[in-house]
């Protein structure tokens, strides 16, 4: 069992699944010969050919809309949106069509498809190559939203997403592609959708995070451990459906909850988590449900000084934990 990078885990899982199920196709911009701008699909075109690995024109709405049709007629498309920032031209096809096909047809049609997209900041990507877009989709019944944080989970969750009968948005933090490594068994294991993981057990403060922030939360937990602050880190892994039970069990135990997300704070995904915890764990709370998230500017600015200002860091999380612990 070898240690793999985050992107290797994704690439190999795509290849494995395409070998297992010939109804799977991959389509998107530059996913063929170039293997994707991050090389997530490198090698697929050479192995599976033009019919199953399609370099599309520069048209996101078409990529998603045609995937919906292909899914309706027996394929399992895996669409790549080159950057999550460029998913908005396809917003109507995702929200009005993919998410509603099953409900509006009273189960007449389903749309088994996966939309993969690299998201997130801290990579000098500026306003349009750094966004966290999950909140726009976690609000939509009919969609599932997955954000893995380890190579192991990436593989297990991507398998579950590809084999799922409904549309799944699978967001990959681009800063993690090569910086994060981890053990990935060669077995056909899956990680089920809708199950969070406790990645650092603790007793005094629950920190809820996902994606890159799940790593920063662990760093922060270590930093405060020396001062005897025991932190429990919950890595959500699937954002919709949310594993409410794991979240609430942890907060009911610790009595304190800090939610961390990289996206703009107002109306971000963490707001829903905070609302649920505040309502359903009310009697257990020894302090306010707090959040550490991105500031209220429309996108991550480019210059490193501004980008550092924007990004949530282990230090900012640490400070949030200390404040809450001291409450």
């Amino acid at each position, binding site marked *: 069992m070898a240690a793999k990078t985050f992107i290797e885990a994704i690439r190999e899982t795509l290849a494995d699944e395409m070998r297992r199920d010939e109804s799977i196709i991959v389509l998107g911009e530059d996913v063929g010969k170039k293997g994707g701008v991050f090389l997530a699909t490198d090698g697929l075109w050479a192995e599976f050919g033009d019919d199953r690995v399609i370099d599309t024109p520069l048209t996101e709405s*078409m990529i998603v*809309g045609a995937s919906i049709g292909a899914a*309706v007629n*027996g394929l399992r498309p895996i669409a790549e949106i080159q950057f999550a920032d460029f998913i908005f031209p396809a917003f109507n096809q995702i929200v009005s069509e993919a998410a509603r*096909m099953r409900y*509006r*047809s009273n189960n007449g049609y389903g749309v088994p498809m996966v939309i993969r997209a690299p998201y997130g900041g801290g990579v000098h990507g500026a306003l349009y190559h750094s966004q966290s877009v999950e909140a726009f989709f976690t609000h939509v019944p009919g969609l599932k939203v997955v954000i893995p944080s380890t190579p192991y989970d990436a593989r297990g969750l991507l398998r579950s997403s590809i084999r799922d009968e409904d549309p799944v948005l699978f967001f990959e933090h681009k800063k993690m592609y090569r910086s994060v490594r981890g053990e990935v068994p060669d077995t056909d294991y899956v990680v089920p959708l809708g199950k969070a993981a406790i990645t650092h057990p603790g007793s005094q403060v629950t920190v809820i995070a996902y994606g890159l922030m799940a790593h920063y939360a662990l760093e922060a937990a270590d930093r405060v451990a020396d001062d005897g602050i025991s932190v429990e880190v919950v890595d959500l892994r699937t954002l919709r459906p949310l594993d409410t039970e794991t979240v609430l069990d942890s907060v009911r135990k610790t009595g304190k909850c800090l939610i961390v997300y990289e996206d703009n704070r107002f109306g971000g995904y963490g707001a829903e988590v905070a609302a649920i915890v505040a309502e359903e764990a009310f009697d257990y709370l020894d302090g306010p449900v707090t959040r550490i998230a991105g500031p209220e500017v429309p996108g991550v600015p480019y210059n490193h000084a501004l980008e550092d200002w924007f990004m949530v860091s282990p230090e900012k999380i640490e400070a949030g934990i200390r404040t809450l612990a001291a409450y």
Partner: protein
Amino acid sequence: MAVTKDEAAKSAAADSGAATPEGAAAAEAGPDNTAAGSLAASVGLTDADLVEMYRYVALARALDERMWILNRAGRIPFVISGQGHEGAQVGIAWAFKRGHDWIAPFYRSIATCLTFGMSPRDILTAQYATANDPSSGGRQMPGHYGSHEHNLVSVSSPVATQLLHAVGIALAAKVRKTGQVAMTSMGEGSSNQGDVHEGLNFAAIHKLPFIFVVENNGYAISVPMARQVSVANVADRAAAYGIPGFVVDGNDVLACYAAARDAVARARAGEGPTLIEAKVTRLTGHSSDDQQTKYRSEEELAAERERDPVPAFRTQLKEAGVLTDETETRLAAEIKAAVDEATDYAESQSDPDPATALRYVYAEDTE
């Protein structure tokens, strides 16, 4: 890639004939009534086909008129109508293999859906939004038809989105080598949406078995063609994608059939997409919520009523001696009976149970 069992069954049925209009034709056609020179022979069909096509046109109109009566009587709150589009819809749908090919229709596609296999009950239970409405189980507004059984994609409201679904269906047909052709239809106003550009470009690049039908009735609600589309014909845009584009008179049912038949042949031969624009007329307001006299003159409306495909097709078949008075009378009676029966049926069906409202947001009990 293997064709699924379900599909194999469907297309076997299709090939066996009886299940499809084409088949019905093959079955009933004798050498005499395909004699060269006859109207039917001129488009490679039989008199039996023509009569059957007329039946669908007249049935669609009868159902549509019934919908308006039920609306005025306060039985159903909303109507969106296909009146004026029926000839083009039946002529075009006739060229496809029912139960094998695919259609992504739109809200005026009553005649298309009937020709492709939906029943008067299916159409009217949708108006009543009953629990057993096969299109949506009462979840969608009337006009949002769909049927997995008949390869009719579920209609949504945002216009033009379905074009990309049909393109994707055609892509799957090509990748899976199923031999299927996918068609979508919409109005000329909807054809200005960005999805249309993106889909036609992709379908043309990959020579997909895809046919784009524009039912041009000259208006997008109140906005006339001249303020919606910068060229005289939407079909003029086919050249921008390197695909053939044709304008047909939507009141000439057989011309519509012939254009679609050739397009289907090209698609099956791997020669790629075709755009067919049928010039039709909108004989009613946009919907039961619209007062078209506010933006269309009485003269214009009167002139439009002259361009009604139903009498036009009837007269054509009668003059050709294909449709006799007896047959017409018989069909009229059968259609009236069918519409009455479907109305009573739909009236008697129950509303969906709110206890089911949470179902099918996601797939249920998948292993």
